């Protein structure tokens, strides 16, 4: 498999009145060709910001303060955010689907106008050809009667249908990478399943790589081949999906898997919550951000700064000093 995108040490920060918020603090990952990658974390962990940084869609007071985004042999961060070079990548080679299908479509333009815009700009199509292609795309993503609905406005569409439009828009220029930021969070479960299945079929058909940004561990277990777990602006664990779920190694991942109820759980299963709260990202200490909530912590964690991602087993990396293969000392005491 060839590597499509490599992000190295990405730092994105927001300068606020109360201090600097490092939403992404040295995020590194890669995406291979035709691969489905999951990026998992809770709200505020920086998963969306990392993706917006790749697209250079960070606006003030946010700033990309360091790192590189290598795509097609070029560092995308060298390009000006609004320059022609970045514009030829954004939407055309790397496309993005946003979380809120209700707010990410322009309410005063028809679906057709919004779908054909990209085709005319990026693919240099004529208006007629673009319209034909837009109808075709709407059919592909499962919008019935596409040739009449293309002139409807977003408010004529249900949430699920709007997200289908967004997916069609994302795929319209045959991108190499499609980033889906919480693509189905605002939708009902059955619609969510419909859309995710359809998205998987589409990326196979278009030979696109898909990045699913989500907080739902079930979704990545079902669809992603490889996953990254983020906490407080950093990736804390990465590896093949089957390895991470079979044997999670970072205390945060272990905690997450124990605190969600599973549909197939035994009766009487107790949830083990992660105590405490996610940290405030302003003026973070150099030590591990998960330390206050961690049940595996050792003395070294208090003294040394947060470690880099280190391999534990082949492709499986964690950012932790403790030996998480043994039970935490706290559970013995209870």
């Amino acid at each position, binding site marked *: 498999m060839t590597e499509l995108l490599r992000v190295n040490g990405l730092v994105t920060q927001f300068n606020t009145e109360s201090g600097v918020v490092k939403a992404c603090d040295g995020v590194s990952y890669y995406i291979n060709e035709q691969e489905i990658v999951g990026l998992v974390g809770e709200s505020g962990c920086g998963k969306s910001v990392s993706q917006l940084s790749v697209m250079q869609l960070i606006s003030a007071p946010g700033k990309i303060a360091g790192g590189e985004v290598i795509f097609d042999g070029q560092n995308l961060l060298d390009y000006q955010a609004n320059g022609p070079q970045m514009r030829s990548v954004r939407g055309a080679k790397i496309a993005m689907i946003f979380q809120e299908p209700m707010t990410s479509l322009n309410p005063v333009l028809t679906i057709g106008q919004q779908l054909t815009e990209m085709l005319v700009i990026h693919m240099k199509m004529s208006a007629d050809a673009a319209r034909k292609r837009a109808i075709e795309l709407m059919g592909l993503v499962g919008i019935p009667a596409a040739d009449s609905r293309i002139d409807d406005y977003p408010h004529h569409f249900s949430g699920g249908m709007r997200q289908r439009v967004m997916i069609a828009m994302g795929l319209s220029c045959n991108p190499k990478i499609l980033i889906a930021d919480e693509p189905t969070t605002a939708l009902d479960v059955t619609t969510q399943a419909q859309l995710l299945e359809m998205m998987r079929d589409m990326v196979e058909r278009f030979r696109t790589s898909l990045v699913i940004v989500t907080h739902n561990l079930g979704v990545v*277990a079902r669809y992603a081949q490889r996953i990254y777990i983020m906490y407080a602006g950093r990736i804390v664990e990465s590896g093949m999906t089957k390895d991470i779920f079979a044997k999670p190694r970072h205390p945060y991942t272990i905690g997450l898997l124990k605190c969600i109820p599973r549909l197939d*759980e035994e009766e009487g299963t107790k*949830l083990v919550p992660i105590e405490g709260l996610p940290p405030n990202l302003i003026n973070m200490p150099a030590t591990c951000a998960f330390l206050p909530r961690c049940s595996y912590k050792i003395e070294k964690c208090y003294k040394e700064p947060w470690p880099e991602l280190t391999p534990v087993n082949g492709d499986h990396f964690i950012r932790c000093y403790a030996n998480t293969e043994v039970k935490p000392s706290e559970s013995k005491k209870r």
Partner: protein
Amino acid sequence: MNQKNDDTILDVKDLKMYFPVTRGLLRRKVADVKAVDGVAFKLKRGETMGLVGESGCGKTTIGRCVLGLYRPSAGEIVFNGQDIAGFPEKKLRDVRRNMALIFQDPYSSLDPRQSAGSIVGEPLLIHKVTMAKSDYRERVEQLFRIVGLDSSMSDRFPHEFSGGQRQRIGVARALACSPHLIVCDEPISALDVSIQAQIINLLEELQSKSAGLSYLFIAHDLSVVRHISDRVAVMYLGRIVEICKSRVLYENPLHPYTRALLSAVPIADPVVESTRERIILKGEVPSPLNPPPGCSFHPRCFVAIPECSQGVPGLQDVGEGHEVACIRVPGYKRTF
């Protein structure tokens, strides 16, 4: 209050809630939105009943009818042995002392100008539970402790708390008058994944400590509902299509909609995921303004036969209290 000794706290019988759709200058009624259309279930003391369904299926409307926040169009709501469906507002007030509501959004359900202590204590004053000032203060402090908050925080305002803490305040307020029934309307869906478990465990703990506290737990997340409930009712377009013990729900779902709903929920385990049945439904939930004839699920159903559109199947017990509303289920007797 004429509290009966039987173990049923809530008995909902053929509940209907129609909202009129009006048009024109004279606001003439042109149609009804049948948000809840003939729902019946019983809730025992100390039991948790889960109510699941997708948005717009009427689950919140049922919760609001039970609490007397909506006046039902038809049907009975028997709470503690008396039908409260037609109660005037004054009488409802007495009944409401014994029921409480936990809201979905802890960010908008707490008055930003009221201190946490006064939010929690307000029901005590309204229902005149504690007369003396010292009793009041003591009870509020006790409530803070019960939900795991420091009682020294009672002078703080909602914005000084995190989402999880705010939801704890909401729980403390619901507990204030020691209710018999708490309606939990999506109590955790606005919280972060790692915080959700804290609130679920708190609710479970409260129930095990106080004998006879019942929950009507309304949520769209099947895994959460299954985890916390003793029995689960699955709703589709204003009707209950299946009621069963939560253990049975995953092992032996009978209604095709329940099966599809279950299969749509991904399990956080790639090994289990690779072997699961996957049913992807066609289309979307129809409008409750114009529901399809017969079984309202039949246009999307993968086992539908022509007879499905001829009549509305009612809930029938097909063994061991497993109730289902589908003529395609073995053992179900068609009545039309």
